[in-house]
């Protein structure tokens, strides 16, 4: 299979012209397709269904039934049956079909061995060269419309494209309110303050840091097209990834939007957990990982 990588280079992360769905023929596949169909309709996207595994008559019949129940016309979607390594093949097919968004079903928490070895959905999330939507909850588009949280890391070049992608998605899904959250982590700050700081100094330093970060977040959002969506801005403290995961869980978020990882993640990143790995270890809600090709 040959594909033209030039088509992917610098391709913007939205609009979602092509949405792919990874099919595993699990009991939740029906619900996953229902959801994917609604998102594709809302974003006027082309739908590509991918299954990596043996093509059997039972699977074909099951897929036909699901498509029928979801009112999806077979001729309007592209169905790809392929064999080989599931992760590699899905990643390859996404590149080949210039997929903008890949939708996968995922458990909120994998068992510990599977997590460390790498489950399919999570491994794809770490490696994908397109945006990935992991649907965890019993899917319902209604839910996606309610509480949407965007990780707006103010110092990262991927953040503005990610916020714009999140806003594009929110507008098409009819979301009225979005929370933009900026995580602040200051390693060794406690040590620096313990070294020699008076109480008013400590308060002043902490206040200044929070104000500085709030200003950064505010000016970042000002660069984005928020349209009629109501934006809530929030600065939270804690380790990146972990803090926003906790925040999403506390706020009972329906969708959390984050940047794609900056580097190739390995087993060691799960041992010395950081950033996206905190979120993948225990998904607080549905997760949209925006891959901005900046």
């Amino acid at each position, binding site marked *: 299979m040959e594909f033209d990588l030039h088509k992917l280079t610098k391709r913007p992360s939205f609009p979602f012209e092509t949405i792919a769905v990874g099919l595993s023929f699990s009991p939740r596949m029906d619900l996953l397709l229902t959801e994917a169909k609604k998102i594709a309709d809302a974003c006027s996207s082309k739908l590509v269904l991918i299954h990596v595994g043996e093509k059997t008559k039972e699977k074909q019949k099951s897929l036909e039934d699901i498509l029928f129940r979801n009112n999806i016309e077979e001729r309007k979607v592209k169905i790809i049956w392929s064999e080989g390594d599931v992760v590699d093949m899905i990643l390859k097919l996404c590149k080949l079909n210039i997929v903008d968004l890949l939708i996968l079903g995922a458990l909120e928490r994998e068992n510990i061995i599977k997590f460390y070895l790498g489950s399919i959905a999570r491994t794809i999330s770490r490696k994908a060269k397109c945006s990935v939507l992991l649907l965890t909850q019993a899917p319902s588009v209604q839910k996606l419309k309610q509480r949407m949280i965007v990780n707006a890391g103010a110092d990262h070049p991927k953040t503005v494209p990610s916020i714009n992608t999140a806003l594009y998605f929110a507008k098409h899904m009819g979301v009225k309110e979005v929370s933009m959250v900026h995580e602040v982590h*200051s*390693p*060794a*700050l*406690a*040590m*620096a*303050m*313990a*070294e*020699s700081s008076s109480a008013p100094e400590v308060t002043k*330093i902490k206040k200044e*840091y929070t104000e*500085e970060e709030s200003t950064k977040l505010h000016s970042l959002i000002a660069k984005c097209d928020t349209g009629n969506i109501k934006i809530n801005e929030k600065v939270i*403290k*804690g*380790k990146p990834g*972990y*803090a926003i995961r906790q925040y999403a869980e506390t706020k009972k978020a329906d969708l959390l939007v984050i940047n794609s990882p*900056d*580097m190739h993640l390995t087993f060691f*990143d799960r*041992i*010395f*957990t*950081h*950033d996206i790995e*905190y979120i993948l270890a225990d998904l607080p809600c549905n997760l949209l990982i925006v891959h901005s090709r900046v």
Partner: protein
Amino acid sequence: MSKFTHSDLIVLLTAIGVILILSRIISEMGRRFKFPIVMGEIVVGILLGPTIVGTISPEFFERVFPKDGTVSIAFDGLVNLSVVLLLFVAGLEVQLPLVLKQGKAAIYTSFLGMIIPFATGFVAAYYFPMLLGQNESENVFFAIFIGTALSVSALPVIARILMDMNLFKSSIGMLIIASAMFSDLIAWLIFSFLLAMNSASQSSMGVGYTILYIIGFGLFMLTIGKKIIDRSLPWIQTKLSWPGGVLSISIGICLLCAAFTEKINIHAILGAFIAGIAFGDSAHLHEKAREIIHQFITNFFAPLFFVSIGLRVNFFENFDVMIVGIVLILAYFGKVLGATFGAYLGGLKINNAIAVGFGLNARGAMEIILGTLALSAGLISSKVFVALVVMALVTSLTSAPLIRKFYAEPKK
């Protein structure tokens, strides 16, 4: 066996009280001139110790800080506990994911900022020990120690300098902090290994077993141990008294790890340091809990330890201009050159790379702890120790102005 008497208790309590109050007063005076707090504590040690009070009034010095007897044993116990806890807080701030996140700039800066000073120190101490006042040539332990001593950085001092310069959250600040964390980690591992080798050479335990124990303990604590701590912390912080629960459990685990490593002939500091890393890496550790642990240890145990240094050594008698000069030259040359070159290779402009070099050159408290332990283990002489203390203070004091001189703010 002699008992700890009523009068011994009075002497011990008086000594601790005098140390805490005097070091606070002197450190607060120094703070006005942006001197690191450890400098005030060292000055108090020099004042109270054999250098000043011990010379002027030996009877008074011997009465309050006796060299032998139960008071001395009790005070030594406290000092040992202090160094273990200081290493615990040092470990608490080592966050390996931060180093990974800073990418190639941090990796190059950390590695070259370690390797070049280590090589400089090792070669100088191995081939030219007479320059450092050593008679024995080709002493591997001494050479490894000097190499390690020159490659360590002092995260607390560096963090404070960056905070005062408003560079704490800048990209250059994060690079310096991440590189210092990594240097600390490697330096303490090498040093623990060195102490273990030194004691293994005098005991029945073989070198192979010592290495096996170090690797086994480190791997266990940084994987399974870390996960257990991570899982337990939310329960500890919500179900037990706050902040007493997290304070006693974390320090308790630190002391158990320290006792374990001491038992298997690796120094107690390694257990404490690794316990600190395991706790500090947990995202569940509340920022407030981290601050409380730091405050408790930095303000009670750190003065006891740093003042005790001046109580042991006569700084005037052991001040050797040549050794001090050589240690200073080696320290500046190796660290600044290595870290600058690393940061430059990592993509920084030359001016900022030099600023990183001078940032990482601050040795502060970590160097002094390292030197004290080496002195106790008989690896170095008092003259080399005094030179290391002077070097730690000079590098810490010159770090901020030199960063300021070279650092170029990014254009907005």
